[in-house]
């Protein structure tokens, strides 16, 4: 019974990796890449609750990520809000937007749901591009440093730890949820919506709740990203970014929280590793993705776990 086992061991292992990783990184550039891994992982862990566990698709989560980033950028930069207040207001605003669109959108299934969430992401990207007065338009805008209780949080190393801590918190929350009655309800409606309703699960409500939750995860990650990078552009809301998030969780393994983290790590690092190959970068990138999905069709973590399990028995 893997689900009832306390998940402290997995969290400790992940925490140990987060602590050891910076010791192995040769220079600050790689520390920044590692920070991006953890921030992407937060989005992926939340998105995986929606896609991997509840079985709904979203091709618009970069929109929520960017909204969080811009909420922090604009509220601190233009209106002088305290950073944590801006982060919370962004998360609350994104949660409200997600709640507002969730009911009509989540009535749709499969390709239609994909199209609707895709449209939502595109609308957000357009707004960020056009509201030049506030957002700076396509050029993006600078973000003030995050200040907490009068302390300015700046520097790559510090942000590595902030991102790692937030990622561990996100993983802990997700693991908690999955091993609980509402978590089982999400997996049940993935398995069979009609049977989930037949055992008393309000499928609509459960879907709306997980959609809002995953959007809030993305928004918080976006806010942290804005302060870590000190610059935001509308590209963060783009369709490619949304697809990238979905690719990360599929690659790592749907319905696996650690898979979502691993997928985020692989797809954040891979372009950096391949950058030296110039023209061949994209070919190799695509080939690696195809190779993984052919040989580990359920994603890296579930496929390897299944093989390991077989060898044990």
């Amino acid at each position, binding site marked *: *019974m893997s*689900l*009832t086992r306390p998940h402290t061991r997995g969290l400790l292992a992940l925490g140990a990796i987060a602590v050891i990783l910076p010791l192995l990184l040769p220079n600050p550039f790689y520390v920044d890449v590692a920070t991006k891994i953890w921030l992407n992982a937060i989005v992926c862990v939340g998105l995986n609750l929606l896609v991997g566990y509840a079985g709904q698709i979203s091709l618009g989560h970069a929109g929520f990520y960017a909204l969080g980033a811009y909420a922090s950028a604009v509220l601190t930069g233009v209106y002088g809000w305290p950073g944590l207040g801006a982060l919370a207001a962004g998360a609350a605003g994104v949660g409200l937007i997600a709640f507002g669109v969730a009911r009509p959108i989540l009535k749709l299934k499969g390709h239609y749901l994909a199209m609707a969430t895709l449209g939502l992401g595109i609308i957000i990207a357009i707004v960020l591009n056009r509201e030049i007065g506030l957002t700076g338009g396509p050029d993006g805008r600078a973000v003030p440093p995050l200040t907490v209780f009068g302390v300015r949080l700046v520097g790559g190393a510090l942000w590595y730890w902030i991102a790692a801590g937030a990622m561990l918190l996100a993983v802990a*929350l997700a693991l*908690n*949820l999955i*091993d*609980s*009655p*509402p*978590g*089982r*309800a999400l*997996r*049940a409606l*993935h*398995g*069979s919506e*009609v*049977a*989930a*309703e*037949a*055992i*008393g*699960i*309000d*499928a609509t409500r459960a879907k709306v*709740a997980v959609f809002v*939750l995953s959007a809030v995860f993305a928004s918080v990650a976006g806010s942290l990203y804005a302060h870590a990078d000190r610059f935001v552009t509308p590209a963060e809301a783009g369709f490619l970014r949304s697809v990238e998030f979905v690719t990360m969780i599929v690659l790592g393994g749907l*319905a696996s929280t650690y898979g979502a983290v691993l997928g985020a790590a692989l797809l954040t690092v891979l372009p950096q590793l391949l950058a030296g190959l110039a023209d061949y970068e994209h070919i190799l990138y695509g080939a690696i993705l195809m190779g993984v999905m052919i040989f580990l069709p359920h994603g890296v973590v579930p496929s390897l776990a299944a093989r390991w399990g077989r060898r044990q028995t």
Partner: protein
Amino acid sequence: MSLLELAGLTKRFGGVTAVDGLDVAIEAGRIHSIIGPNGAGKTTILNLITGVERPDRGQVLLDGADVTGLRSFERARRGVARTFQNLQVFLNMSALENVMAGCDRLSPVGLLAALARLPRVRRANRAATARALELIDFVGLAEWRDAAAAELPYGALKRLEIARALATGPTLLLLDEPAAGLNARETAAIRDLIQALARTGITVVLVEHDMRLVMGVSDHILVVDQGRRLMVGTAAEVRADPRVIQAYLGTAGAGVTGAA
């Protein structure tokens, strides 16, 4: 007052009238069967009772309360549970988790409490695990409890659906062809199971084609034909009724009654 009452229930699919002005009252604490030829509207009746389908006319009353406007999950929370003719097991979960998902109705937990893993979440998990284990034993699946549901054989999945339905603590349990696809030995085991759970006070409504099973366990049998009520009676009455023999049992009836 009847536990379940269908009043003038009508459901059309395009030009086909699947259920046509059906009036039925089902008393608590018995095993009731619904039989009829293929396409008589039996599964549609179950779908109307559980709220999977909405009727075009008529009402569904539970304990005298009109539940026609309630959604499927709301009726489940009022004690209506069911299994499915075409299995609807959660294949992405273990056998135990399938049943736990049913148990969760009895100790609801909010999303925020679950995220924070408050003590009541742990209590709910423990309660659901204990109850699910009992039910898995009750339906005879003890050897499969830790297996992924997708690994279970067909007959075990049928029992798993029954355990999951029981987990919700129903007063009314609707079984849609629980013996379909089972061999004689498995069918006998399902019969024993149905009788055992009826003894616990749950009212059972059975839709089934296996006449030996139906005739053996049913206190009352509703015969439907083309969405209409043909008759209601005991097994002996149904067997003796010429309308039933004509409309449903026909030539095959001789062999079935002989076997029973």
